């Protein structure tokens, strides 16, 4: 039963990532693209968690945690650059 749930999860997340990619390519403003990148990172974390469940290995959670931190810092850096014209002032 868990295999089918994981398969359904992979299907949903692949579809969600395609929708995010559409929004990332279409825009129209910079903020839309930043939102799309942020959501793509969150969905990628979900994919990593699902891979960890499907292989029953706890190795993947460090990768998910690192991606969560780096994704947040990336989003804030994009926003700071658009707001202030610089990242580190």
């Amino acid at each position: 039963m868990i295999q089918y749930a994981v398969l359904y999860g992979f299907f949903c997340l692949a579809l969600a990532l395609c929708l995010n990619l559409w929004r990332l390519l279409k825009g129209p403003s910079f903020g839309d693209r930043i939102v799309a990148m942020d959501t793509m990172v969150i969905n990628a974390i979900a994919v990593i968690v699902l891979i960890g469940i499907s292989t029953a290995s706890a190795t993947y959670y460090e990768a998910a945690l690192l991606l969560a931190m780096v994704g947040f810092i990336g989003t804030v850096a994009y926003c700071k650059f658009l707001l202030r014209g610089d990242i580190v002032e």
Partner: protein
Amino acid sequence: MTAFAILPDIAISVMIVIGATFALIGSWGMVRLPSLMERLHGPTKATTLGLGGMLVGSILFFHLAEGEWALHELLISLFLFVTAPISANMIAKVHLHQLRVKPEGGVLDSIGPAGIPPLPSDQSSWATYEAPAPESAAATSEA
């Protein structure tokens, strides 16, 4: 006995399915909604909730199937629940800044049904970057 043996599987599967569905709903909302201020709602709420559900499923899986408590997932969900409002606030501020810097242009088609957000008061504006006024001390001083 068999009915109890299958209960952990059901719990894990339900959490994974709920999480994946909410993640998909969040991304669909980001595509479907008309403007950036509305588009923020999908990822910041639905997708974060979906990832939280999936992480709960993962905690249950590693406890019930492997017999160990893994607290990494709790750390990930805590971190995400703390950072999601901050990035949403930053993106909304970018939107306000872009509206102010160039009110007509590429962002006009993403203002949406709610319109431009009102100013905080008559005397002030939103706290985003703007170039100093030409005659002010900040603009005329030598760097």
